[in-house]
Structure formats: structure tokens, C-alpha cells
């Protein structure tokens, strides 16, 4: 069961130690005889969010076995003579398959160790994708000599018939062996599935140790695998940001006097207002986002979107525009699809290729078409490096947006020393912004979003 919990954690279900303890205690009470009760018990103690139920349902049969029938012992029904005959016949057959045959004919399946050995031979040390389970199971079968099994069995039956075994007994023997064959096949598959899960759990543990370091490294230096690790971290990061936002809300002291609450709180002082209660009305920000999705900025944009997607409940309304050389409204895509799909759609609308960033053009497009979305409650976020390839930076358009909006936040991956160098118009944009953040790595990005939610 401990492995099951590890497997759940590797698949993204957050199970704490206290909960796994509860599961143990609960199972003590309920017992393991009734499979359905066992399933329900584990589910109610280990999984606390309805979205995690499918993952649980997927992993449960892998660890606690579907009702695989145990292997039958065909030899039990043979008498002395017949057993003798069987042994003789087996001795005469090729002994590559002796292991397999002994399993099928004695009713004793492979031990845990033998299965482990087999798995190693099949190369399962690095297997980590659940769909590979069947493939590996087949491989293990091949290693055992499954394909020759049919022929060898036929030879066995012939030999036994020649030795004079009773045809009825022979038929029964054949049937039982066939059943055992099936059961063994299932057992192998299940074992393969379990091994894969265990591998994943190992990897996950390893990942967690490195994720922390990865968050410090700049986006441009990460390869695809490392980006994947970070993607898993996003949810946790979002939870942290959310709780920080909640704490901030609690401690915020701004607001007008709330007379009702004040009087109520001061009844113990006879109505004398010794303690003031303030009305804490915090409005969630409305966002308008400009995302540079040119190749260099793509990972940054992606993580920004992911974090924001998780934090939707902290934001009242958001409109997103992706740009390279022109603007595309991607709000609808982000709303209607899952995170993966949305990111893909955004990226396909503005496919990578050699065309250069032109923020100025995008700004002009925005002011002519969408300026009404920016009002005095809006926070405008620009995610880009302000490099316009020596084209018109459209400062007047930007100034207009800046005047209308409550705040303008610029997030750039560049160091401040790089601003203004080459084709960067950063130094011209900066005076028009309320705040500028550097977002080279995930830590800084999270920090920037935290700050954005703060005001």
C-alpha cells in the first residue's frame, strides 16, 4: 500500500503523511476482504479532490490486482503413474522452457524475485509510461519462450498420449494448462504495470529535489525535460501564490469605517468605539495581457499563462493578446480549452518562423480595435523584451493605454544593463510603466505575479 501512495503522489495527487496514516488505520478497521469496501476506504482517506478520482481509479487496479485467478495445479489431479509419465516427458523436452513449463504445470507461479529478474532482462529499469506496460509484458513473455510454448506443449501431449495417459485426464490437463497460461499472461502484465508505476515514483522523488534548482535557472537555458519538471511545479506554485494573496487580503488595512461592525465589536465597551473596524473591500484586478510569443519568449509566455490559468479565481476578468508582429486575441482560446490545448492554439495562431517582433504595430492595432477594454480598473501586463527590430515603437499608443489603465506592468527577461542596447526600446517604454519586473526564471515570474496580485 505504501507503494500505491507513492504511485499516487508521482501522478500528481497530493497525499500527506497524515492521510496515509488514516488510510492504514481505516483499513485495519474495515479489513481487506471486501474489495469494494477496500477501494472506497482508500479513496475516501487518500483522495480529497474530485478531480483526482480518475487518477485513483486508474492506479488502483494496477496495485491491488484485478481478480486474477490463481494458477491451478494440474498435477494435483494426476495419480502417481501419470505424474511419473509427466516428469519423464518433461525431461525429454528442451529445457529452455523448463521454467515456464514448471510454472504452468505445478500451479506455482513465479516468485517476486523471478519476476524482478525477468523485468530487468526485459529492460524495464527506465520504463515510465503506463501505456508501455503491455509491450513490456510481451517482451517478458518472449524472454520466457512463450512463442515456442504451443509447439512444446503439443509435443508434450503427444508424448503423454504415447506413454499411455488416459485421454480424459490428458484433456483435463490441457485445459488447466491453458487456463494457467492465460492467468500467467495477466500476472505478467500487471507486474509490468506496477514496475512502471514504481519507476515513476522514483523519478518523481528525484524530480522534486531538482525542481527547486530549476526554478532558479533562466527559461532560455532549460531543455524540454526540465521544462516538464517545472510544469508539474506550476500547480504547487499557484497554490502558494493564492494563499499569499489570501493572507494579504486578511491583513490589509485599507478601507473606510464599517459602522455596523464597529458598533457590534464595541458593545462590550458600552458602545464607546474603542476598536475600529474597517471595511475591507478588495477588488480583484481586471487584466489585459500582451504576450510576446516569439521563439525566445515562448517558454516565459507559456509559464505565465499556466500560472495565470491556475490563479483565475484571483482575477476578475482577463483578456489576453498574443503578438509577434501583429496582435491576436487569444482570450477565447484560453477560456474554452484545457491548459495544454490553449497553449498549443496560441502557439499555432502565431507559428514560429522568421518574422520579427513588432510591438509597435501590435500596439497600434490594439488602440484602433480594442482600446475600450482598458479602463481605470484594468491592469495592463506586457510580457516582452521590447526589441522592435528598429521599427516604430508606437510610444504614443502606449502612452494612451497607460493613461487609461490603472497600472501598467512590464515583465522582461532581460537584465537592466541590456535595456536600450541594440534595437531595444525598453528605456522609452519604462517611464510609461508603473512597474517593471525581470522574469528570467520561474522564481522571478512567480514573484512578479505575486506583486501584481498584491495591489
Amino acid at each position, binding site marked *: 500500500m505504501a507503494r500505491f501512495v507513492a504511485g499516487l503522489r508521482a501522478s500528481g495527487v*497530493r497525499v500527506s503523511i*497524515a*492521510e496515509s496514516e*488514516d488510510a492504514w488505520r*481505516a483499513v485495519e478497521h474495515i479489513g481487506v476482504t471486501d474489495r469494494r*469496501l477496500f477501494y*472506497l476506504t482508500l479513496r475516501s482517506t487518500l483522495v*480529497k479532490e474530485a478531480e483526482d478520482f480518475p487518477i485513483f481509479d486508474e492506479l488502483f487496479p494496477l496495485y491491488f490486482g484485478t481478480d486474477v485467478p490463481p494458477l491451478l495445479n494440474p498435477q494435483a489431479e494426476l495419480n502417481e503413474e501419470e505424474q511419473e509419465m509427466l516428469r519423464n516427458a518433461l525431461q525429454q523436452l528442451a529445457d529452455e522452457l523448463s521454467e515456464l513449463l514448471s510454472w504452468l504445470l505445478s500451479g506455482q507461479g513465479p516468485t517476486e524475485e523471478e519476476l524482478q529478474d525477468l523485468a530487468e532482462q526485459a529492460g524495464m529499469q527506465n520504463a515510465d509510461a503506463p501505456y508501455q506496460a503491455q509491450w513490456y509484458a510481451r517482451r517478458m513473455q518472449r524472454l520466457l519462450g512463450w512463442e515456442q510454448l504451443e509447439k512444446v506443449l503439443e509435443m508434450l501431449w503427444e508424448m503423454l498420449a504415447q506413454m499411455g495417459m488416459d485421454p480424459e485426464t490428458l484433456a483435463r490437463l490441457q485445459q488447466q494448462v491453458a487456463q494457467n497460461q492465460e492467468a500467467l499472461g495477466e500476472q505478467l502484465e500487471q507486474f509490468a504495470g506496477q514496475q512502471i508505476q514504481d519507476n515513476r515514483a522514483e523519478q518523481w522523488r528525484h524530480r522534486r529535489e531538482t525542481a527547486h534548482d530549476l526554478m532558479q535557472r533562466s527559461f532560455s537555458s532549460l531543455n524540454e525535460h526540465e521544462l516538464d519538471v517545472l510544469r508539474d511545479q506550476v500547480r504547487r506554485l499557484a497554490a502558494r501564490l493564492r494563499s499569499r494573496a489570501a493572507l494579504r487580503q486578511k491583513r490589509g488595512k485599507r478601507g473606510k469605517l464599517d459602522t455596523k461592525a464597529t458598533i457590534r465589536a464595541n458593545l462590550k465597551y458600552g458602545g464607546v468605539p474603542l476598536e475600529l473596524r474597517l471595511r475591507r473591500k478588495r477588488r480583484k484586478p481586471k487584466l489585459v495581457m500582451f504576450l510576446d510569443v516569439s521563439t525566445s519568449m515562448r517558454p516565459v509566455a507559456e509559464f505565465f499563462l499556466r500560472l495565470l490559468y491556475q490563479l483565475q*479565481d484571483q482575477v476578475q476578468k482577463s483578456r489576453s493578446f498574443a503578438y509577434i508582429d501583429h496582435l491576436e486575441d487569444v482570450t477565447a482560446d484560453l477560456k474554452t480549452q484545457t491548459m495544454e490545448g490553449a497553449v498549443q492554439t496560441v502557439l499555432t495562431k502565431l507559428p514560429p518562423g522568421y518574422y520579427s517582433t513588432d510591438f509597435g504595430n501590435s500596439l497600434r492595432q490594439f488602440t484602433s480595435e480594442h482600446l475600450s477594454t482598458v479602463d481605470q480598473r484594468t491592469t495592463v501586463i506586457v510580457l516582452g523584451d521590447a526589441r522592435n527590430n528598429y521599427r516604430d515603437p508606437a510610444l504614443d499608443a502606449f502612452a494612451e493605454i497607460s493613461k487609461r489603465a490603472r497600472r501598467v506592468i512590464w515583465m522582461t527577461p532581460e537584465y537592466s544593463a541590456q535595456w536600450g542596447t541594440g534595437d531595444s526600446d525598453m528605456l522609452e517604454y519604462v517611464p510609461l510603466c508603473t512597474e517593471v519586473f525581470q522574469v528570467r526564471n520561474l522564481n522571478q515570474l512567480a514573484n512578479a505575479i505575486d506583486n501584481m496580485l498584491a495591489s
Partner: protein
Amino acid sequence: MFESVGNVKDCLAEQQYIASDEIATVVYLAQKLGKPLLLEGPAGVGKTELAKAVSGALNQPLVRLQCYEGLDESKALYEWEYAKQMLYTQLLRDKLSDLLAEAETLAEAADRLAAEEDVFFSERFLLARPLLKAISANEPTVLLIDEIDRADAEFEAFLLEVLSDFQVSIPEIGTIRATYHPTVFLTSNNTRELSEALKRRCLYIYIDYPTVDQELEIVQLKVPELSPKLAQQAVEAVHSLRNMDLKKNPSVSETLDWARALVTLNASSLDREVVENTLTVLLKYEADVARARRILRGDRGTDTGGSRSPRNW
């Protein structure tokens, strides 16, 4: 105390609550492990009723705390009855001056007054709110904390503290420990995410809309006057409504209301007129009602006016 999962089911059935295997198991576990039970699910599927049924089955009083935004400690735990204290002070003013008359110095007077302090901060003036009631009860109780997702995060943190120790310390009186730990139920409509710490402490169950058979059983139990055939049609109709993309899906309680409405109207079959007239019992948004009516009319191209099975919607 429940003896087994089967026992739970039977006891709840006696209380007119049809519990699925899942619900019975988790209720049994919650009691055995002494952990609170978090019930999540859409509105109207029977979360509150479960707590009431368990309270009835165990024969323990139900203490209910309804949560809302801005709920704080004074409304949930305890409060001093200021008004009463003031009143008593005023009325006892004469007696008080008699008592203090013999005092020579101010310090002595203060001491005398301090000796009488316990009068004004005693249990007499303590207004016990639901949580304190559940903790200080002389018999085991069932504590229902309804719609915890409507309370704010601070209240959750405070609740966590109470649920872990089941003791309250009132500065003036002392610490009140629970003699019997109450069975705690928390319900949530999932309007916001609850804090992880609270979720960790509870056992979790998601109660979804029942299947056709389960709902039929419930209808037959609660509204026995409805003919089985009509009940079947009604339940199937409600299920087809739930498959439509409505703003608010009809819940189990609305199905029961509808069943009662059909009984009251003495409807013999589920024909178009009856359905159109009673649609507002099921659907509470005008947009939904209009949509359902449209679909109803749209499909009835060859309406014979007789009793058509609503499966043809």
C-alpha cells in the same frame, strides 16, 4: 455507534435516507476513526439530509452551524451577553453600593468588587453558540457545519483549531473540554477551494446526482402516493433535463417537489400540458424554462397529446 457498514445502511434507511455503499462506508469510517467528514457535491443532493439522518439514526441531537462570509468566532463559538450583563449591573446597583459601602479605601473597594467578578462572567451570561454547544454537551452530538465554502479562510483556520482538540478556552472561565467528541459533518458546494489543512483532516466524499434507479428509490420512499409508472417517467424526465446544458440542473430535492406537485395535481400521466405547467418547479431560471419548453415543443412535431414517454424529448 454503528456496528458495520451494513448496519449504517439499514439505520439510515430507517430514517428515510437511501445511502449508497460509498456513503455508508465513509460514514462508518468517519465514526470509527473519529474524523470529520467532508461532503462535497452539487446543491440539493442530500448532504445536509445525510447529517440529519445520521443524527436521527444515532439518536443524538443535531447541532447546526450555517456558515456565511464574515462568520467569526463570536457567532460560531461563544459570546458574552453584554446587554444582559449591563441590565443586571443596573438593577443590582443598589446592592452593589451596599456591598462597597463598608470599604474604606478605593483599593479595598476594588478588591471587594473583584471578589464578585465571577458573578458577571459566569456561565449565566455566556451565550453558547453552536460549536460550544457541541463541545460542552452532556451527551454525544452530531455537529453539522453547513456550507463551509461560504465562510472565509480565517474561519477555516479557526475551525481547524477547534476540530483538532475539541476544547475551548474562555479566558474568564477556563478551558472547556469535550466529554464526548461530536461526529462532525462539513458540507461544501465547491464554490471555492477549501484550505488543504482542512481537507487533510477530514475524510472526503463527493456526492453526485443519483442514478435513475437510486433516484426512483428515493422518490418512491418519500412520495409513496405517486404511481410507480409515473414515478419512472418523472425520474427519466429529470435525468434527460440534467443532460441538457442548463444553467442550474434540477437537484434531487426538486425532483421530490415535482413528484409531490404531480400528486397534488392528480396527474395520471406525464403529458405535455402537465409538464409545461409544472416546469417551474424543476427549473429555477427563466432561460432554462424557455429552453426546456423549446425542446419540448420542437420534438413534439407529431404530438398525439396522449401520454408520451419523456424519453422522446
